[in-house]
């Protein structure tokens, strides 16, 4: 806080509202808070994208092979839906195609987390009130948050532009790719800034921005599945589609960057207009009064009340994703059949059987890894309740720690069953065939999902200070599963993730051994974690 003491005590008072006063100090405060998180995001995202060049070269090492891939992409909807269309057969073009979308998505996630963390989170916790009482302008907190996001996204864009200029085959292409990824980051940074003005809850602001991101992905995927070369108007409705339309390493359309920039400016201006008008801590969506008497009488009801919104959101999202991917499944065989290497990637992700099944199995696998994020988040709600001092008065009542934890754990582990069932239902309905096997395939992922949740229980119960590390474990599994097969990682690395241990369903043979072993492991870790919770001090 010493840096905040630099307020100009001895400067004669200036007149005017000075809406940006204190921005520099707040920016330094934000960078100080994020000194670990920010470099990790930037280096990992840029590193994954740049190292993609080497991977692509090892897979498609001749121009003929790359040209073949380009040709097959124009005929296949399914892979276009996942990765977008391919505009160039250069190494850089393939990197942009295979890794660009993922990096843009992650840059958007990073940006929304940064901006909400330094705006609505600060206000919700009451910290902003103290800062705003110092010499801090009305628009300074928002500016500092957006500048932090700008620094991170500029870092990613520059690293990619420099790092891919050589291996990608075109400096201009590398610059266009870097700018498109950084631009998507800033687009969602300003969208988060806007959401932070509209809602009083940081959780809700994050959820709304993430939902917009998911919607953008779905629009782009649907558009790309329907038409090749990104000609569907649907892709123009999605910011992630714009990133595609820039066509880095192909016939680059620089003017699309101006569209991104304009959207960033418009959203930013809106957020600024709202930020200047509202009260600190308040929002434009007012809180309605609640009931004068309550019907909640158990901690399980309380947990359900606190988490039901998130769970219903996950379930609806998974149902929609299942419907979308299920309807694309038949097209998968077309493309993959024509390229030996792509077939290999897919089979590594989805198993050895027929290609439609392999596609479905790959989708089930990836969605299950995303579902693990729900489980981790629901388990860590316990940690959140404890550190926010809300657990203390609850546990000072006639409530044991285990029954208290049980409510949230039911939503975490039981919720996994619900959302994977929704995924399975969606896929089966979308595909219109194999109802039982597809639903079973989705549910067969449960042991791995539960295992990641049980890691969170273990960390929370035994090492509560390290509870957030369970995000890292889940994130690592997601990265291994999503990019691992394409990076041609050795199989022991792929096997590190519990998802790598499970049978590839539908299509593969149902092996019970890994399912039972992973389930037993999940039960064991959860038990150890709960035993730790019973024995330890509450964090105060």
């Amino acid at each position, binding site marked *: 806080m010493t840096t905040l003491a630099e307020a100009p005590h001895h400067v004669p008072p200036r007149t005017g509202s000075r809406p940006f006063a204190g921005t520099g100090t707040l920016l330094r405060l934000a960078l100080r808070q994020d000194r670990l998180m920010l470099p990790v995001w930037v280096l990992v995202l840029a590193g994954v994208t740049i190292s993609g060049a080497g991977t692509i070269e090892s897979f498609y090492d001749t121009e003929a092979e790359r040209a073949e891939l380009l040709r097959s992409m124009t005929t296949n909807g399914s892979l276009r839906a996942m990765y977008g269309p391919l505009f160039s057969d250069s190494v850089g073009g393939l990197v942009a195609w295979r890794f660009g979308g993922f990096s843009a998505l992650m840059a958007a996630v990073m940006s929304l987390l940064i901006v909400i963390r330094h705006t609505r989170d600060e206000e919700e916790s009451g910290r902003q009130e103290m800062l705003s009482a110092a010499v801090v302008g009305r628009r300074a907190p928002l500016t500092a948050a957006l500048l932090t996001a700008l620094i991170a996204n500029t870092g990613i864009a520059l690293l990619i532009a420099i790092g891919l200029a050589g291996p990608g085959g075109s400096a201009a292409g590398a610059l266009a790719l870097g700018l498109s990824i950084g631009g998507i980051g800033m687009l969602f940074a300003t969208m988060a800034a806007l959401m932070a003005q509209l809602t*009083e*809850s940081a959780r809700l602001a994050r959820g709304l921005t993430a939902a917009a991101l998911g919607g953008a992905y779905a629009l782009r995927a649907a558009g790309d599945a329907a038409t090749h070369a990104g000609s569907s108007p649907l892709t123009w409705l999605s910011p992630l589609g714009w990133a595609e339309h820039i066509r880095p390493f192909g016939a680059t359309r620089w003017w699309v960057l101006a569209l991104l920039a304009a959207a960033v400016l418009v959203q930013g201006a809106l957020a600024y207009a709202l930020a200047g008008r509202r009260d600190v801590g308040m929002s434009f969506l007012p809180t309605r*009064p*609640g009931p*004068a008497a309550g019907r909640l009488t158990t901690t399980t009801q309380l947990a359900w009340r606190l988490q039901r919104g998130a769970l219903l959101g996950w379930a609806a999202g998974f149902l929609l994703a299942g419907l979308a991917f299920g309807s694309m499944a038949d097209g998968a065989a077309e493309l993959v059949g024509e390229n030996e290497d792509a077939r290999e990637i897919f089979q590594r992700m989805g198993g050895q059987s027929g290609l439609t099944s392999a596609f479905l199995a790959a989708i089930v696998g990836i969605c299950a890894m995303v579902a693990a994020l729900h489980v981790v988040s629901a388990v860590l709600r316990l940690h959140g309740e404890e550190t926010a001092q809300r657990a203390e008065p609850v546990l*000072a009542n*006639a*409530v044991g720690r285990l029954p208290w934890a049980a409510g949230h754990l039911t939503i975490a582990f039981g919720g996994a069953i619900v959302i994977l069932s929704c995924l399975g239902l969606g896929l089966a309905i979308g595909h219109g065939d194999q109802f039982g096997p597809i639903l079973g395939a989705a549910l067969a992922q449960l042991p791995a999902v539960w295992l990641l949740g049980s890691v969170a229980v273990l960390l929370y119960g035994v090492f509560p200070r390290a509870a957030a590390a369970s995000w890292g474990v889940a994130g690592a599994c997601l990265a291994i599963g999503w990019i691992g097969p394409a990076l041609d990682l050795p199989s022991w690395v792929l096997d590190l993730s519990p998802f790598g241990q499970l049978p590839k369903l539908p299509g593969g043979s149902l092996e019970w051994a890994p399912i039972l072993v992973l389930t037993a492991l999940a039960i064991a870790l959860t038990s150890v974690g709960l035993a730790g919770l019973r024995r330890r001090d509450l964090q105060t």
Partner: protein
Amino acid sequence: MTRAITVSGLHKSFGRTPALDGLDLSVERGEVHGFLGPNGSGKSTTIRVLLGLLRADSGAMQVLGGDPWRDAVTLHRRIAYVPGDVTLWRNLSGGEVIDLYGGLRGGLDRARRAELIERFQLDPTRKGRTYSKGNRQKVALVAAFASDVDLLILDEPTSGLDPLMEEVFQGCVAAERDRGRTVLLSSHLLSEVETLCDRVSIIRRGQTVETGSLAELRHLTRTSVTAELATAPGPLRELPGVHDLVVQGNRVKLQVETDRLDAVLRSLTDSGVRSLISTPPTLEELFLRHYTDDRGGQAVPR
């Protein structure tokens, strides 16, 4: 079993930082017991140990005849707790939280709930985020006072309450005592302690430094005496328990330990007393002595 709380030799460290260093505490049934000490002296840590939220490193403890760690859940049916800083769920209304706490404790008195909401002038329909600090405290206070328990543990419960509400609070505590309930009240408001508490314990750096009724504690401190005498004073300096003696001609100013007052007065009357002002120690002085000792033994500001 006549005591509600017995603690002896309680130790608790967080890592290498000792928070409680052999603390003793004994609270009789049916009394309002003041629990005092400077910031960071271990009051809240003690309370959390008593609630079974923290586990003691060593020491003997009983709360309502049970072990606060082992019997936490059964004991909590008979205990209501109000923390000094109440945090609420942003999307639950105050009324919902009151009923939730009541339900978790095993029911609350609907009539008392309504009466308390009225007396504390609380709007139970507002959501957690929209309450001010004082109103959040009221939510916890209503939940505690409306429940049927034997022991109330209140950790600086009135922080943020306005003077009017402070009075309502004092009325509620007095009513609880009249109904035979035990109250452990941690507080910094000395007037509140003076009004409500039968006995107090003062702790410092995790140890109990003073315990007893207010009268007993007063007895241990000094009375200040100012007198105008007919002749020059006698050998006051030699009397035991006399401090800070100032003599200006026939005027005398001194501090005397209260249980040594007799001898001083005798000596003063020997010299013929024209006027006499004797001030008993204020509670403030009593506490300040302990509080300032905590900061490296500085002199008591007078």
